[in-house]
């Protein structure tokens, strides 16, 4: 168990990136419409986030500087502020979606309407951020989120035709009835969500919270190499479940309860119970990640004191920011908006935030004044540059694709 807890930061970070409420539904949508033909995007995304999360963790361990501090330092106030606004809006939209997502998950467990759960969910998130020690928080949510492994188990229980799944994943055809535009829209959306910037904000700030130093580089690498591939694997399992059960029946996935249908078919009530625990933990974990990230980004840009390792009076504006974020989230949800839809539009802001986040990380990871002898190696830099180009292309393509396809409709 101790070994498992050592990678809790990576697991929790990956849950927020790959398995938040928007991703839970999107993965099923993608599976039910495209089968596994977009699996390659998840693989590309996992490699990318591993690469940059590890860089951000290494910068934090070597210099004590979290990612938004280096964004401000290297890009200056203008480009830094542009990134801050975009990233902050992504955080806030995702936080809103997650608070709603916790309520939707609790509704599945209790059949009490989500409206009643929203204040409870928001209060719970705040209480954990306010009072619970960092490692307890990441261990509990990270471990409970692993209940989603039930989706991977379900794939086996559904006795799929493995060779046809493999063919789908490897040849990546655009399915009949889908246009190339929607295919690429979902490709960009999946990629953007795998590499969503709050993962590196959270991971690097978590490294500072846990007081990592150069001695912890191996642990950082382990967190990255366990957490993100696990997140990617569960994304693929969700998509495969949907491809096996929902695609043949032409079910159009629009809600969280439909995501459970394949699980019910494969494993009955017990499996559904596991999945619901996983939903609650994953949305709660994603809410913690995005809630804390609203505080991290703002505090690090302005140089305020931040961190859960300090008592709240020693990081006053950091905690106030998070409280305001949660109040805004409740206000938005009170309008009755569908939480799943809220995350869809964060793709627009990712177009600004992704390049302006990953460029400074790549540059500072090469700066000997920060890194000493732990600067990037040649291979890391080559792959990093390739990804920077992919990120740029995805960022430029995101908004036109979104408009052209009506957000993948």
């Amino acid at each position, binding site marked *: 168990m101790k070994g498992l807890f050592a990678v809790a930061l990576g697991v929790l970070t990956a849950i927020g990136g790959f398995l938040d409420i928007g991703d839970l539904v999107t993965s099923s949508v993608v599976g039910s419409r495209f089968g596994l033909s977009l699996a390659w995007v998840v693989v590309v995304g996992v490699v990318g986030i591993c690469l940059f999360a590890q860089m951000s963790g290494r910068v934090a361990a070597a210099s004590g500087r979290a990612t938004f501090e280096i964004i401000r330092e290297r890009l200056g106030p203008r480009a830094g502020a542009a990134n801050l606004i975009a990233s902050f809006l992504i955080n806030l939209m995702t936080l809103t979606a997650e608070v709603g997502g916790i309520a939707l998950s609790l509704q599945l467990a209790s059949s009490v309407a989500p409206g009643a759960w929203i204040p409870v969910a928001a209060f719970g998130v705040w209480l954990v951020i306010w009072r619970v020690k960092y490692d307890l928080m990441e261990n509990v949510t990270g471990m409970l989120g692993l209940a989603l492994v039930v989706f991977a188990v379900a794939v086996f229980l559904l006795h799929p035709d493995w060779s046809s799944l493999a063919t789908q994943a490897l040849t990546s055809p655009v399915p009949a009835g889908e246009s190339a535009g929607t295919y690429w829209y979902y490709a960009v959306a999946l990629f953007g969500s795998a590499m969503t910037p709050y993962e590196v904000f959270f991971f690097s700030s978590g490294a500072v919270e846990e007081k990592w130093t150069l001695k912890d580089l191996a642990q950082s690498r382990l967190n990255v190499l366990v957490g993100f591939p696990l997140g990617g694997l569960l994304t693929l399992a969700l998509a495969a479940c949907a491809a096996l059960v929902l695609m043949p029946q032409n079910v159009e996935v629009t809600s969280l309860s439909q995501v459970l249908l394949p699980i019910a078919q494969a494993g009955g009530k017990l499996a559904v119970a596991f999945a619901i625990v996983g939903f609650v933990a994953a949305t709660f974990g994603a809410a913690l990640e995005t809630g804390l990230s609203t505080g991290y980004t703002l505090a690090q840009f*302005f140089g305020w004191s931040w961190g859960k390792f300090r008592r709240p009076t020693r990081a006053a504006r950091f905690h106030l920011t998070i409280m305001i974020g949660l109040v805004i989230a409740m206000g938005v949800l009170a309008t009755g908006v569908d939480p799943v839809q809220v995350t869809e539009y964060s793709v627009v802001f990712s177009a600004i935030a992704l390049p302006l986040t990953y460029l400074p990380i790549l540059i500072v990871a090469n700066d000997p004044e920060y890194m000493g002898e732990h600067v990037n190696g040649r291979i890391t830099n080559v792959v990093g540059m390739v990804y920077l180009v992919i990120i740029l292309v995805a960022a430029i393509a995101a908004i036109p694709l979104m408009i052209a396809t009506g957000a993948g409709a």
Partner: protein
Amino acid sequence: MTDEGERLPRPEYRGRVLDAALHLLDRQVQDVHGEPVQTADDLEIGDVPVGESLEGAERPRILAILNGTALSTRVVGGRPPSSTLERIPWRHVADVGTAIRLTIEADDVDATWRERWVRDHIIRRIPGGRHDPE
């Protein structure tokens, strides 16, 4: 590094070199215990007489690290009114690394009055705010 590929002469530096924008601007400022205080939003340097010959004049020094309104004008342009600038005098700087370390405590820095206000009027009054997380 030059167009012509010629080697320019290198001057002799009799001390540590700090390029203001590179090493100081936008860096995190920490107090004596490592607690974040602010970012270095701008620097106040000794006056240069405008339009006059600098013959024989002393080299301007860094007088203070600035905070607050100095940031907004760097984003949107213009010039901050001098009276609204919050200063940390250079004599309080202990070291410049990936962060700028001070010799004094965060609470003794004028620029942290907003942090102290939020702490005293909001955070301190919420139960549990004064304790370490459990």
